[in-house]
């Protein structure tokens, strides 16, 4: 018997409680909290999703089976909102990744005021989303917003433009606000990944005649790819269920042009008081996010191998 096993046996003999009981006692408080705030609400939502529950029709809540799910999956409004959410997700995540990588590379360079650069880059991410959204609503205001003033003074605009009230532009303005806020997070994560790349590998490649771009594509990018994929998983899941920044900037308008699937679910449940359909929508959104995450994780597994 090894020394470790003897010590464990001695401890077990000294304690009146089996080791697994002690472990269970330590885990119990956290498990209880998770049960109360995650498992029970999830179960309750699943239960609600198969009933026709309306807050303004109390006492009349018939069982409808999968009708709520079928109605949503065959609804044009649902698919339109899903398409908007996907557009927001793809464009904002791509821009955040591109700008984030550029900033991370900049932060990796031996510059004189590097500490200052890193501090100001992180600033937008440090702002609460509500502050960021309100700030951009002001910037984009057609009458007194800074964007119109700036573009007019630069001679790029001849007259003030309506940004948030135009259904062709509003989504782009929301994406700009989201990219401005979330790019620093991406930059910090990629910067951390870049720090782990052995600089000697790059130097050897350069000595062998590789250009800077080739060294980046063939050596740096493959080495930081696991982190890139993690960033993609995180941002895709966050972006697909975006709510707060859009709700504050446009409320889903004009003419539903910025109504993403999370806003559609909120309006169904909390403005239409249709809690049955709202719960079904919540599960559909969760399912879509799980599928997206599974795809990314599979890619991540391949990259890891």
């Amino acid at each position, binding site marked *: 018997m090894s020394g470790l096993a003897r010590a464990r046996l001695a401890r077990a003999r000294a304690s009146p409680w089996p080791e697994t009981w002690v472990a269970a006692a330590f885990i119990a408080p956290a498990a209880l909290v998770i049960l109360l705030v995650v498992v029970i609400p999830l179960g309750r939502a699943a239960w609600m999703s198969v009933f026709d529950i309306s807050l303004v029709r109390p006492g009349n809540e018939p069982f409808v089976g999968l009708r709520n799910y079928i109605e949503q999956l065959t609804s044009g409004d649902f698919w339109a909102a899903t398409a908007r959410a996907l557009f927001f997700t793809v464009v904002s995540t791509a821009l955040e990744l591109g700008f984030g990588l550029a900033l991370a590379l900049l932060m990796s360079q031996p510059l004189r005021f590097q500490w200052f650069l890193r501090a100001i880059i992180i600033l937008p991410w440090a702002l609460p989303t509500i502050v960021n959204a309100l700030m951009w609503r002001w910037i984009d205001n057609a009458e007194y917003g800074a964007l119109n003033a700036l573009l007019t003074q630069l001679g790029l605009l001849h007259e003030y433009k309506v940004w948030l009230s135009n259904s062709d532009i509003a989504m782009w303005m929301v994406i700009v606000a989201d990219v401005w806020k979330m790019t620093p997070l991406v930059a910090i994560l990629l910067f951390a990944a870049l720090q782990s790349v052995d600089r000697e590998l790059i130097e050897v490649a350069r000595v062998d005649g590789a250009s800077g771009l080739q060294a980046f594509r063939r050596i740096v990018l493959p080495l930081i790819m696991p982190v890139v994929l993690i960033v993609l998983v995180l941002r895709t899941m966050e972006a697909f269920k975006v709510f707060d920044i859009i709700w504050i900037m446009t409320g889903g*308008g004009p003419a539903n042009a910025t109504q993403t699937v999370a806003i559609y679910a909120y309006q169904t449940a909390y*403005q239409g008081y249709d809690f049955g359909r709202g719960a079904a929508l919540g599960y559909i959104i969760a399912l879509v996010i799980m599928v997206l995450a599974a795809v990314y994780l599979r890619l991540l597994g391949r990259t890891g191998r």
Partner: protein
Amino acid sequence: MSTPTTGHRSRRHLVALLATVAIAAGACGGGASPSAGPVTLHALFMKQAAYSDADVKAMTDAFTAANPNITVVPEYVGYDALHDKIVTDQVGGSGLYDIVLMDAIWPAEFVKAGIVTDITDKIPADFKSGVFDSAWTAAAYQGKYYGVPWINDTKFFFFNKKMLADAGITAPPTTWDAVVTAAKAIKAKGIVQYPLVGSWKQAEAIICDWTQLAGVMGGASFVDDKGNATFNTGGGLAALKFMKQLLDDGLMNPASLGFSEDDVNSTVAAGQAAMALNWTYGYAVMNDAKQSKVAGQVDVVGSPGEGRVATSGVNGGMSLAITKNSKHPAEALKYALWLASQKSQEMDTTLAFPMWKASFDSADITKANPAFFAAAKVQFAGLVARPVVPYYTKLSNALQVAIQTALQGKATPEQALNDVAAKLPDLQK
């Protein structure tokens, strides 16, 4: 109309007077509450247009002075959160509030959901006869009353008299045709880029303007007695076409599609619009030197008419409803009646008009702005209502999107409204 300074001063005097009268009445036994023990009432108000927090506090202080065993805990939320807070609290939540401020479009839904109490038999006779009919309409459903009228409001026509004069227009327009003519003249002279501004964001605000316009352009009818859509023909369709034309002609600020009523005030106050529809409180805000570049230049008249209809106004009335969850409905009703009394309503007329007909005949009350009171008296006599149906919120949300879709040019007005008409059976579920 009094300036804000004199308004506040007179308000303080009136509060003091009311409190004195109330205490005296209480001492004589007339104001004593019938309840034996102490009672706490929770009331939910709106923090936006009409009466301010200070107004409600002044009225409440006078009430509690007369009823020392009753404590009132008021809470305020923005209009956009008011409906949701009431429903979630009363149906899905703790049922905290005894009294809630109920908009004209909610009684049907609240009655169906079992939120509010029928008070038809408990209303004093002088309230029934003394208050404008339109204010009662805002508290009624299927011939019964579920609230004590408290706010009687509609949208008036505000105009910058200097801008109109600079464009050679000497009298405010009384028809929408005249509004268009005036707007074209203002734009042609380069006085402002967009002479008109509206609260046309994707919210109830755009429905209010659309309804008001429909009222003079063929009638504001939404659904018939059988539940069939009527909003896609007649006045509703004509009003939407008119709104679209204003945008197409560059007369209406296109940013209006994202503007609330507060944004309308700000735009007029910044001197960037010459004419606008807005609620009563707009007059005080647009003429407040602290927040308006054009203070003193903004005047108000009744909403313009069209053809044979002289004017119309959307019914923006709100009432104080007693909730079914209230454990003190008698005290809650007493408080509501106090807030709605003629004396309370006449305390401050800078942000909201009294809903008592007699107030409009009192020179002491109307002397602050006789022309505005005269316009209001005419408009209050014939307000147009939005439909009082249990599915109103869903219908309104669908119409907001349809109207904005048409205004953005993504569908014709006919297509946009017909699409909602096709969805109506689903909305009625």
